[in-house]
């Protein structure tokens, strides 16, 4: 990492952010935008300075996409924390979320990308917008009787906050990037192979999906080479009979209790299908047949983090209760009303009997 460039760019970004905090005329805003984006680009350049060389030419496009997404996300975030109108700020936040979601996609976290969009952009941000509009509709008095939107236009202690943020950015940047190769950045081939093996083993835990996948591959192979029909159905070597045999085949379990054997590099796996007449047919599955990201995530969630999952559920439940309790209208009830609501005898009322009218 080029540390001086990093600090310089971060300082430039801080200055730009400071200048953005007050409403400015349009040309000034344009200049700020340019400088801000330049600052972000410089930070990225500084960080990428000692990156390992790209492994192949195909990386060019994702790299540019990454830079573009970063610029969009930072621009949206900067606008979000500086925009004088809260609703616009919330909308800019949706822009940030979109950029982050695409970034997730680039990192092969498809499920999380869509989950982020649905939960954040779809649910949480909409709630924010509802509350914002609710508040603005009823007219904000402001805290000291000044113009209602004063507090949205005026930042609070901007310089202290920016210095603090600069320190945080600089030190975390130092911690992550200062030492060359303190982190590997790219998973080693062995690491990748182990991850692939783990992925295939997860597939072994999902027999239904695995069988479907194996049958599909077998059918595809059959379609490519009709000569295979005799192997699948020796008695009646027609393609139709072979298809039926494949459809009726089940996944054989080997002596070690495994349903599939993985190649050492994890690039492929072999599943043995057992037809109704008991013959065994190895089927080679390639990458396309591996469990998808969401399947794999789901498996990990229940297999590796079951307690955390339960706790997350409890947290959500408690948040639900909390939100209900907080948002409920506070009613002033008299003693008798409260007693009736609780189903106990009213004070001084001898005729009231528990459990209904007499």
């Amino acid at each position: 990492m080029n540390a001086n460039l990093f600090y310089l760019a971060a300082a430039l970004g801080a200055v730009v952010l400071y200048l953005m905090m007050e409403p400015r005329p349009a040309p000034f805003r344009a200049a700020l935008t340019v400088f801000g984006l330049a600052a972000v680009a410089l930070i990225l350049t500084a960080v990428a300075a000692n990156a390992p060389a790209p492994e192949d030419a195909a990386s060019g496009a994702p790299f540019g996409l990454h830079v573009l997404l970063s610029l969009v996300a930072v621009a949206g975030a900067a606008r979000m924390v500086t925009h004088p109108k809260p609703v616009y700020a919330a909308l800019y936040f949706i822009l940030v979320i979109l950029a982050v979601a695409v970034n997730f996609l680039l990192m092969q976290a498809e499920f999380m990308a869509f989950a982020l969009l649905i939960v954040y952009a779809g649910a949480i941000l909409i709630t924010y917008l509802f509350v914002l509009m609710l508040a603005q509709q009823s007219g904000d008095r402001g805290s000291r009787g000044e113009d209602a939107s004063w507090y949205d236009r005026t930042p609070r202690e901007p310089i202290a906050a920016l210095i603090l943020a600069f320190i945080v950015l600089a030190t975390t940047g130092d911690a992550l990037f200062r030492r060359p190769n303190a982190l590997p950045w790219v998973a080693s081939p062995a690491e990748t192979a182990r991850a692939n093996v783990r992925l295939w083993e997860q597939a072994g835990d999902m027999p239904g999906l695995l069988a479907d996948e194996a049958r599909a591959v077998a059918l595809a192979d059959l379609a490519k080479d009709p000569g295979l029909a005799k192997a699948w159905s020796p008695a009646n070597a027609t393609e139709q009979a072979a298809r039926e045999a494949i459809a009726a085949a089940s996944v054989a379990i080997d002596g070690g209790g495994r349903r599939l054997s993985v190649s050492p590099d994890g690039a492929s796996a072999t599943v043995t299908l057992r037809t109704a007449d008991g013959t065994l047919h190895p089927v080679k599955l390639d990458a396309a047949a591996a469990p998808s990201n969401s399947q794999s995530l789901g498996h990990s969630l229940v297999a590796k983090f079951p307690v955390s999952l339960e706790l997350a559920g409890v947290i959500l439940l408690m948040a639900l209760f909390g939100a209900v309790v907080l948002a409920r209208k506070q009613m002033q009830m008299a003693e008798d009303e409260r007693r009736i609501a609780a189903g106990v005898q009213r004070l001084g009322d001898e005729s009231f009997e528990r459990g209904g009218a007499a």
Partner: protein
Amino acid sequence: MHAALLPLIALATGDGAHAADGHGAAHAAAAYADVGTLQFAKATVDTSYGWLKWMLLAPLASVALCGAFAMLKVRGRLPALFTVASFAVAAVLAVTVYRQWGPTLFSTHAPLAVPLMDWLTFRWGDGPFQSFTANFGLYLDGISILWILFVTVLATLIALYASEYMESDVKAGYARFFFAVSLFVTSMLILVMSDNLVGLYLGWEGVGLCSYMLIGYYASQPGAVAASKKAFVMNRVGDLGLALAIFLIWTNYGTVQYDGLFQAIASSGAGTVQGSWSKAAIPFLLLLAVCGKSAQGPLFTWLPDAMWGPTPVSALIHAATMVTAGIYLLARMAPFYTVQAIGSEWAEPALLTVGWIGCATAFIGATIACGQFDYKRVFAYSTISSLGYMVMGLGVGTAFGGVYYVFTHAWFKALLFLTAGAVMHGMAGQVDFRRLGGLLRVPGFRITMLCMLLGCLWLATAPFSAAALSKDIILYQALTSDVEQVRWMGWLGLLTAGITAYYAFRVWFRLALGPVRIEPGPDQHHGHDDHDHGAAGHGHGGHDHGSHGAHAAHSGGHGHDAHGFHPHPPGLRINFVLVVLAVGSILAGLPTYLEKSEGFNWIQRFVQNSSAWIRATGGPEHGQILGRDGHGTLFVLATGVVVAGIALAWVLHAGNRALGDRLRDSMLKTPGLKWLARGSEHGWYVDAVYNALLGVPLWLGAQVLAFLDRFVLDGVVFAAVGRLPGFLARVFQPLYVGTVQAYALTMAGGIALIFAWVVWIWLSGGAS
């Protein structure tokens, strides 16, 4: 051994010849502390003597048991049983080791070393000054064996005596008493048997602590508490000297183990020693320690006040054990008083200082003893005087004489204290011998008084008594010395012997002879109606130390109190112990009596085969005193002064008591002699001088400090400090604006700074 001794004897006689040549005092003085090349045999390490650890563990077990009894407040006589039994075990072991190893020490100088347990072992390099070792190990040479012999045997007897003497305390501090006594003996054995100076220091502090506990045993009496504090503080002054001496010994020799230490001294050639202050300070600091522990010189005033403790304690502390620890230290560290250890310009002054302090203490103690009316205090001052003799013996160059006198003195002084205790025990705590008389004819007290007669004879160094045999060695060495100062010490010592004879028999004549006269002491109300052993109150030390005028006014009121008082004669156990001690006192002279038939004096051999041997040379075999044969002249002179002293005591205190009383009155009335009597009776006002020199300035300083504390510290400094938080609060208050973000900013700022610091350390290679 003989080979090692021969050059020394030759050297000593040679010096005598030089002096006779008339080479002058300077030459003789230079030779005084120069004993030639030192030689020390390396200790024989023999782990088969590991059973000696039971000598320490047996009293320690008694400590634990008595302590448990005291803590659980168990009433019973078991603690005494434990204590006597454990001491007896230690005594048996001591006699066993004496019989097994003693013959070796008769012929060769090879201490027995028995490593027991690792304690302190530090190493920070391989060089000579890069390690420190002080382990629990035993080092037995002649003087250690001598000490453990009489310490354990006397402690057993004294504990047996105390088991009867302390019976009235069975319901109170019985277990506590025996706890302290057991701990005392344990510490004393550690002190004597340890193979290094740190172990010695441990025991040294242990006996100091126990003497504090025992002197202040009657803690409800302010006098006892004050006396115990006095003893403790004065001992601390001496202990400072010991601690500093140990530090200096390590910095100079790199070890505190006796074996290595003596080798180191011996290996430094006599001519190569440079006079360095740190080496020269060692003997003087050791002497300070001796002064504190053995009640010498300026630090002796704690010992008479220590009489507040129960009488067995007096016997244990003052006769047998604790006070002789100083003599032990002096004998053990004798190599430090030689030219080879500290250079010629300091060795002689150091040795002469030892001699003069001992001599002066002996003389002053004796003169004070003449003026006391409390027989226990007389014996206390006589102890100071006797200790002075011992120190003088070491100072004038006869460790044999000093150590032998320790041995004989332990027996007869224990005997004297225990007889005094028996009298107190029977007379309800009466300690003024003017109110008692004719006890020889009181039924039940005959054995006690006869034993006391023997003790007084021994204290007076009657001819042919064990005490005389040992004391004459000291006087002979001093009087035949080449050095004029040492001869003066000898003459003063001779005069002291006469005074000693006088005051010893002053006590005995007053107590034993004359018309029967019994005025019970302050404890008589306890023992008045019940003559059972257990209920007789005693020993609560109701001594009116201060004013004797009060005594006189008091005695009139005692007349009718005496009605119905029956003396309470000592019981079987006390009499048994007294008789054993009397026999022991007589037998203490055996080494000399048997010298002719055995061919040697075994105590002399013991001393010669120890680290004290360098001072144990016999001196000129046929020295001259007043131009005549040394031995014969000394015998005549010593016998003469002793007989004169006893005769004077007879005239003034037995034959014609009225004359003695009149003499005192006329002395008090004569302005020129008034100071003599009053000074003697008040211990030459040493305490008052201390008070004026130390107490008053300290009091004034305390007043000044109290003023500073009250007005400067409380009034100014603390007030300012108290306002500081309020001031700071006002300074920082504006930061607390109340909004969440302000707190968030502060918090995040702190976290960010800490994080930045951690990252900075990490990046600069602090943690990787």
